[in-house]
């Protein structure tokens, strides 16, 4: 495979500087202007999603220091510029056809190429054509974000030179390229100025193609070009853009003229058969470094900073001199995959094609923290291939995806997996398309002021593309959920979905729409105070259940969750943590279900436990206003280890009968019966401890006061992490007694729902007559 030199290089990078904003640095709203590089990054995201057989896939856009942009894209074969041999007319037609197909695809996506040139048309030995870096004009906002002009002079159409031009300019350029393929390079030894002048003089020519040929003394050669090809060239090289052919017509005409069929290249197997995006990702994980190679090839030059200082700065802030490379550097650095190939060389071929029915592999890496697993080449290799397999089968593989997501989610497919976990399916584009996202509403003002401060450290979300999309998403959601209103925080909640589905607005929307009812049911009601109060009450009960000492302390200093936990739950922590933490947290959230945030909250309290216990009200609230470093993995880990059914039962300190029953069967609970001796002796739950409520001194916070037997039973339960279930005849005493136990710092206390009588009528088999013990109370 490697002997073929063409396949050695898989991707390439080029780099350029974005324009600096001269003078004023603040926009009208007082916020700094978005740097051009950020705008470029935002627009380029769409390019990353483009897939076409005749287009080189964009793999990555990196923002370097000092407004540097690095574009990483697939590379292949040699550029037309590098092919020295002349092509036959049949080959020209075939190449032309492939270019027009690619161009037709781009134009359909409203992307104008504008920089089409022989240097970025790549052809391999079998005659396959791919366009390279076709998104420069698009990503730079029509060239407005870069300090250099776009396009090579000889390919510019007359109207482009006169500072205009739309998609039809690409047709002209295409015509020039065909012409060059037939009669050789045009205007070869001229400087840009004279070339532009020559092109402009063509305006007077009836037949520009013929005129160009005459100018180059190639009229004879031009006459030799077959009629149909010459026709096509002439249709492209019309002065008036509206008279030119379109790529749709060109594709049709060229395919009629085309006689050459390309040999089907067998799809490579093994590593090279994997998705290019995966290869690039793995290559990076093995230590591949785009910038290092660029530096080595001299595409990034480090010059002393003093040299980049301007010679003069005018009063309006414009600078003179000190500019780094004024023109676009067309050189590219190519990268081979040798590093990755060596790293994965020991992997047996069958492992590239995991089968659904195969037993799942156990990896050693599973024991490592998530962040390290995400950086492990081999682990990600297996995980990605496996997830790819599962995702292809979605929605039929939904349950497998869920099971795998419980372990972890590879970052590269997180967006897809989340959508699968949220059950997003069907024609979401069509549904999203139908929603009116433009009509102004009274909420717009609030959205407008919130978006420019929502996760703005993220390069994707802080550009204008991010702002616009976030606004559309919010408006769409509000419109489709008329029962809900915009509460500040909804923006933060939407941000992770946008971040992961930046180019797939419809899916971001579908995810948000599925997420809210599942995790934030009724939170966005106009009057949500009852819902939030209830949620916070649950949270507080949970805190008491797991961290009795802490809960008692916080209760005593009146540190109520209303003061600090509303943003936690209203935004599912998305307002509290940075995005890289939110994704890990939500990974667990989507798998574990709606009870998780409560546990997360308790997990945070637990991590800050020592500080909180030593602090008064002010210190506590200050601690939460400025939330210190929280280890998400740690918070999530504690939770995930508790089995699901237990988790559910723990939400409420009132344990349902079925949960109680399952706990008893697992011998995971200690029942404290607080009825009187008399009732207890008639019949009681097997294995329960009797602590008559009437004899308990609530003021005394010492378990020993309950008597030796009860004390020992409770102590054992605490050490074995068993749940303590309080059974009583009436609810009120049970509540008071559970409070008492919590104050004695006993964790995992809950009350049997319905009390003894309900249990007795449902599961009488649990009841026995206690053996009389002497000595026990």
């Amino acid at each position, binding site marked *: 495979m490697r002997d073929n030199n063409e396949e050695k290089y898989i991707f390439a990078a080029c780099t350029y500087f974005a324009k600096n904003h001269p003078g004023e640095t603040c926009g009208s709203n*007082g916020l700094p202007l978005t740097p051009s590089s950020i705008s470029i990054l935002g627009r380029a995201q769409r390019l990353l999603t483009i897939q076409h057989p005749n287009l080189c896939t964009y793999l990555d856009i990196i923002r370097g220091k000092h407004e540097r942009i690095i574009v990483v894209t697939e590379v292949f074969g040699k550029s037309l510029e590098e092919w020295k041999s002349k092509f036959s007319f049949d080959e020209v037609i075939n190449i032309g056809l492939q270019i027009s197909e690619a161009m037709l695809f781009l134009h359909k996506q409203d992307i104008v190429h504008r920089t089409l040139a022989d240097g970025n048309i790549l052809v391999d030995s079998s005659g396959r054509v791919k366009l390279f870096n076709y998104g420069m004009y698009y990503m730079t906002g029509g060239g407005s974000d870069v300090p250099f002009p776009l396009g090579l002079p000889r390919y510019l159409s007359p109207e482009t030179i006169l500072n205009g031009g739309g998609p039809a300019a690409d047709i002209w350029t295409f015509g020039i390229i065909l012409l060059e393929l037939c009669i050789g390079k045009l205007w070869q030894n001229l400087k840009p100025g004279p070339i532009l002048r020559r092109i402009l003089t063509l305006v007077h020519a009836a037949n520009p193609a013929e005129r160009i040929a005459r100018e180059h003394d190639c009229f004879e050669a031009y006459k030799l070009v077959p009629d149909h090809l010459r026709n096509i060239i002439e249709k492209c090289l019309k002065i008036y853009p509206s008279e030119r052919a379109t790529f749709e017509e060109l594709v049709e005409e060229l395919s009629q003229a085309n006689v050459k069929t390309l040999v089907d290249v067998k799809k490579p197997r093994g590593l090279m058969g994997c998705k290019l995006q995966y290869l690039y990702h793995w290559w990076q994980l093995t230590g591949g470094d785009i910038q290092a190679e660029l530096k080595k090839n001299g595409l990034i030059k480090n010059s002393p900073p003093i040299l980049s200082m301007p010679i003069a700065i005018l009063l309006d802030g414009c600078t003179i001199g000190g500019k780094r490379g004024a023109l676009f550097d067309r050189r590219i650095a190519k990268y081979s995959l040798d590093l990755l190939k060596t790293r994965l060389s020991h992997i047996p071929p069958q492992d590239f094609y995991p089968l659904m029915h195969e037993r799942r592999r156990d990896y050693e890496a599973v024991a490592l923290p998530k962040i390290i697993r995400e950086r492990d080449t081999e682990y990600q290799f297996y995980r990605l291939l496996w997830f790819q397999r599962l995702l292809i089968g979605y929605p039929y593989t939904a349950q497998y995806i869920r099971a795998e997501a419980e372990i972890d989610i590879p970052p590269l497919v997180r967006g897809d997996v989340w959508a699968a976990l949220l059950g997003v399916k069907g024609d979401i584009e069509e549904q999203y398309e139908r929603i009116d996202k433009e009509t102004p509403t009274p909420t717009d003002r*609030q959205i407008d002021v919130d978006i420019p401060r929502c996760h703005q450290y993220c390069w994707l979300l802080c550009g204008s593309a991010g702002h616009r999309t976030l606004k559309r998403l919010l408006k769409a959601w509000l419109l489709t959920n008329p029962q809900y209103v915009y509460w*500040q925080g909804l923006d933060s909640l939407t941000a992770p979905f946008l971040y992961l589905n930046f180019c797939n607005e419809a899916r971001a929307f579908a995810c948000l729409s599925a997420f809210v009812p599942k995790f934030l049911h009724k939170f966005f009601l106009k009057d949500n105070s009852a819902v939030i109060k209830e949620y916070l009450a649950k949270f507080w009960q949970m805190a008491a259940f797991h961290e009795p000492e802490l809960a008692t302390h916080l209760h005593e200093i009146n540190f109520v969750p209303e003061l600090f936990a509303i*943003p936690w739950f209203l935004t599912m922590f998305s307002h509290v943590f940075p995005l890289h933490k939110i994704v890990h947290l939500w990974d667990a959230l989507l798998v574990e279900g709606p009870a998780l945030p409560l546990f997360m909250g308790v997990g945070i309290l637990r991590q800050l436990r020592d500080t909180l216990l030593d602090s008064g009200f002010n210190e506590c609230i200050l601690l939460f206003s400025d939330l210190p470093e929280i280890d998400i993995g740690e918070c999530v880990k504690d939770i995930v280890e508790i089995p699901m059914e237990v988790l559910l039962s723990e939400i409420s300190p009132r344990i349902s009968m079925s949960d109680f029953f399952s706990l008893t069967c697992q011998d995971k609970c200690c029942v404290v019966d607080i009825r009187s001796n008399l009732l207890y002796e008639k019949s009681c739950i097997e294995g329960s401890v009797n602590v008559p409520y009437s004899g308990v001194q609530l003021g005394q916070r010492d378990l020993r006061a309950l008597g030796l037997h009860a004390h020992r039973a409770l102590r054992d339960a605490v050490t074995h992490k068993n749940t303590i279930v309080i059974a009583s005849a009436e609810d009120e005493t049970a509540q008071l007694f559970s409070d008492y136990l919590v104050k004695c710092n006993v964790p995992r206390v809950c009350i049997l729902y319905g009390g003894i009588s309900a249990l007795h009528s449902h599961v009488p088999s649990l009841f026995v007559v206690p053996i009389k013990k002497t000595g026990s109370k």
Partner: protein
Amino acid sequence: MATNRSGASQRPNGAPQTKVCQFKLVLLGESAVGKSSLVLRFVKGQFHEYQESTIGAAFLTQTVCLDDTTVKFEIWDTAGQERYHSLAPMYYRGAQAAIVVYDITNQGGAGVCGMRAIFTIELPTRDTFGRAKNWVKELQRQASPSIVIALAGNKSDLAAKRMVEFDEAQAYADENGLLFMETSAKTAMNVNDIFLAIANKLPKSEGAGGGSAAGARRLADGEQPRSSTCCK
């Protein structure tokens, strides 16, 4: 808590004569006028261009030294969005001081609404100055009668885009007995000054109760606010 609040343990530099007073201060105003930025500038001396929105409320403290007193502010920075209004009483109840903030460029007022007027959407008073006036009214009606209210016209660095005239705001402040300053959290202009002015105006009577724990308790169970302030 009680020992914490005694003058002796709070004294920052061991100066023997200073007494320490604690005041609860609340910031109110339309969203994105710069409440959080003002507090951040005052407490930490920082300014973040992209200060994130406040949900619910945030709490910070800062101590300022006057001639003979050390004043410790317990600052509640509230959410600006109208919807969070129902939470506001929880924060201003028992507060001894309030800063009501508006944006001198009045973002969201005439600028945006004017443009949208063609769509004839009924917009409530969305201009930040109008909202500030409503807050003042509400405080006068519902908060402690002795509350010291300051009006802050923030974003004075954007004077070129001014929509609310200084004189207009000053006249309104005089009428209602408010302290008034135009501030800029970005350039720090008048930020410390407005807090100092409040500290000066607050009664620092000897032996009056007040302070954090009590303030918090009132917060939680909604007792009537105590009228007098302060500490020893």
